[in-house]
């Protein structure tokens, strides 16, 4: 495979994840995202591009590919992120190179 731009989802598939199906470590109040947040910085700054808008303009998010950098937490001024914790022990991303 030669070097080319790679979609975020494909890049994430190269990483090792242990997804916590029981307890998501990031939780949104999408109502706040929709009504209180104009700028939606998370759409631009999440390295994994996990924050997206659907056709109706509602925020969609899945923490399964989260790289646990914390950028969304810092830029979320409208507080649409109601919970941001690190995943429970052993869950989340496991870097093999880092």
């Amino acid at each position: 495979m030669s070097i080319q731009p790679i979609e975020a989802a494909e890049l994430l598939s190269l990483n090792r994840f242990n997804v916590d199906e029981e307890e998501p470590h990031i939780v949104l109040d999408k109502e706040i995202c929709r009504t209180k947040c104009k700028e939606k910085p998370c759409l631009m700054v999440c390295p994994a591009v996990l924050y997206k808008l659907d056709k109706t303009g509602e925020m969609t998010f899945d923490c399964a590919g989260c790289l646990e950098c914390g950028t969304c937490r810092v830029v979320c001024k409208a507080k649409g992120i109601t919970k941001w914790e690190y995943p429970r022990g052993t869950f989340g991303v496991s870097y093999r190179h880092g």
Partner: protein
Amino acid sequence: MSEEDKFDVIIIGAGPAGIACAYTLAKDGRNVLVIERGTTAGSKNVTGGRFYTYALDLVEPGLWKDAALERKVTHEQIMMMDKKTSITIDYSNPSFNREGEMPQSFTILRAVFDEWFAAKAEEAGAVIACGIKVDGLIEKDGRIIGVRAGGDEMYSDLVVAADGVNSMIAREAGLVTELSGETIGVGVKEVIELPSKTIEERFHLKPGEGASLLMLGCTEGIHGGGFLYTNNESISLGCVFTPSEAAHNGRQIHDIFQDLKMHPSVYPLIEGGKTVEYGAHLVREEGYRGIPKKLYRDGLIVIGEAAGFVLNIGYTIRGIDLAIVSGVAAARAVISGKNPGPEYLDELKRIKLLPTMKAVDGYFDLLEIPRMYAAYPKVATGVFNKMYTVGTDVPVSIKKGIWSVVKENKLSLWQLAKDGIRGFRSI
């Protein structure tokens, strides 16, 4: 666990800071527990990737010799670029890797290095518990006496927060204030596998030697820059962006970074390689100014990046070495038998960490100039374009060429003069 059955020190986080602290304490016979949320030490950690070796020698002389490090850096490069063109300065110094001496710095992969370092601390007698997340601190009469983790309680004379840039623990304890989107960078990185021979040919390296390349002008004007480090059999290529600016740039940082891979001056360096991992991490960008006002309270000390010990002065970027130094300082404070908090601050001065950070504090002003990230790299490449373009037209003088490029980029002489003075003062 009962309060009587306690550790001397509990360290939160098995990164370089926490491990350096644990190693030093364990060697002194202290009863140390390191709690790490990743399945192995380093599995949650990402670096750009370079490590300045002196820090490991502070932990123990000669320890670097069998450390899990990558290449010895002998080539220091800075690239200024616009969309298609670039200027590279390549400073090569073989004495950075002299036979029989400690090489100045190595490229590094953190999942590999941290795991090695943690194993060393274990050999020295520290207990390292991986796969456990610390949920919070236990406080009694205003003093931190232990940690809560997964329903358990563990107690110690001292808790050391080495939990990295987001440091939920130090924040909970009121020591570290909230990060701001203006004074941090979000770094993204691909690890791209290539045969070691290919890497050595492309970067003109001897076997085992490496290059560090920092790039300016690849962030669409967003405060930040690109980086490339040659590992043994891979290249770490990445880019750092200030989130507050990236938020209204209109393009995802992932996309801007993908463009960097395809830049005519970068692509040939990674061509034929295979991306094997995509990482991201926050980094503090404030240097000395970002250090929290209080680095300790009764029963708790903050070390490493949780304590703001990171330095980006444009041409060198340091964090892992400072983390290790702060871990050693914390351990020495405990070993001294004095009140560990105030003693830790004194150690940070004696071990020259705080003076080092203070000495380069002015660079922050230089890096704050917004024109550093698009306009100036464009002026530089534009001037070079004029200098090296030869044809049938009568050439203009360099003076005139510079002036026209400055105007093309909508800069004024006044602006240039102001930035020049500001830049000169700050360094």
